[in-house]
């Protein structure tokens, strides 16, 4: 489904802190593009705050407050300054993603998947494949379906499949019920962040033959 809104369950999991790092990276990056999703996240974080207020308070040791006051007394009141993220590739990426990519996206170990398609594994969460993917305009990725859940966030350019058009900021959720054949459209190379939690399975006549030889 074509969307600029994240599914509610994903927003909840992100806001509550249950979502793993790789999926959280997709959400945090998407939020840059999507004010409506930001409001959704804010609403679920507000629910977290309300739930916190409803919790029964726990007993604390008698001296915790004194010890805490002593610690803040010791602190220099220096402003904590986040170091600027260096950018050397001239590419605008969401800051949350830039932290994982580094200053130069070209310096990553890109590998050829097929003609006109490259990817690179970012290694964010164990058990999840977190990749950047580049698809040249006009190129079609083979029909494939997915065991497990896959989320794609378009960062630049766009692609289309049977379900619609996906441009910058759009997220596409896919699972074993989705069998799609995305094609990059427009003039720019389509750059996507793709997170998956199970190996991809190629469908279609040719795909089924290739399957044992493809390691995604």
């Amino acid at each position, binding site marked *: 489904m074509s969307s600029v809104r994240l599914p509610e369950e994903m927003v909840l999991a992100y806001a509550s802190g249950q979502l793993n790092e790789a999926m*959280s990276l997709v959400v945090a990056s998407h939020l*840059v593009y999507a004010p409506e999703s930001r409001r959704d996240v804010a609403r679920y974080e507000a629910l977290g705050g*309300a739930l916190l207020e409803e919790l029964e308070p726990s007993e604390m040791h008698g001296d915790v407050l004194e010890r805490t006051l002593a610690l*803040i007394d010791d602190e220099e009141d220096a402003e904590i300054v986040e170091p600027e993220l260096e950018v050397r590739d001239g590419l605008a990426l969401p800051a*949350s993603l830039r932290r994982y990519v580094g200053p130069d996206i070209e310096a990553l170990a890109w590998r050829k998947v097929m003609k006109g398609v490259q990817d690179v594994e970012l290694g964010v*969460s164990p058990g999840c494949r977190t990749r950047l993917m580049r698809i040249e305009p006009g190129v079609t990725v083979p029909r494939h379906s997915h065991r497990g859940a896959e989320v794609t966030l378009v960062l630049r350019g766009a692609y289309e499949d049977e379900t619609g058009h996906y441009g910058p900021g759009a997220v596409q959720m896919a699972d074993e019920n989705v069998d799609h054949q995305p094609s990059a459209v427009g003039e720019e190379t389509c750059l996507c962040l793709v997170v998956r939690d199970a190996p991809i399975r190629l469908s279609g006549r040719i795909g089924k033959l290739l399957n044992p030889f493809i390691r995604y």
Partner: protein
Amino acid sequence: MPFDRSMSDTAKNEAELDARTMGILIERVAADRDRDAFVLLFRHFAPRLKSYLMRLGAGAEPAEELAQEAMIMVWRKAHTFDAAQASASTWIFRIARNKRIDALRRESRPELDASDPMLVPEQPEEADKVVEATQEEGRLRRALKVLPPEQAEIVRLAYFEDQAHSSIADSTGLPLGTVKSRLRLALARLRTVLQEEDL
């Protein structure tokens, strides 16, 4: 109606007063390094943060330490608190949530950078719809109180148990489908209640 209008207005105002007070305390910490304000915040939030962290699987000692560290972050980052964006409890919930991810899950927490030059801004019409944060907290707390108990419990589990829905299913003995649909119903009801109050 089980209680008259004036009582519910009073209760409504008290909940909002608390939220507003907490926000003012944080602002005093930010502006004046007000230790008395911090003490009040600590006394209110630290014991609840400890409960939060214990529900997420921390032992009593680590939970208390993490609650203390979260309150130290409150002191350090008070200048970043914006009452228009979030209520005090929401802001502090976020700090504790991120501390927990960092300390107990040993992961990073990817976050939106509010100063990201790529940030696509709100449409002006949408910005008008932003509900005042302390009002929203009051509404959410009232909405939680009127949820059917089994739905309220599932919502709490979604925030306070360190587990995917499938393990909530395991620990409650409920089928996974039931967990998911109960959660969806609860969230839909919360949204409905919030929208009703908009009228």
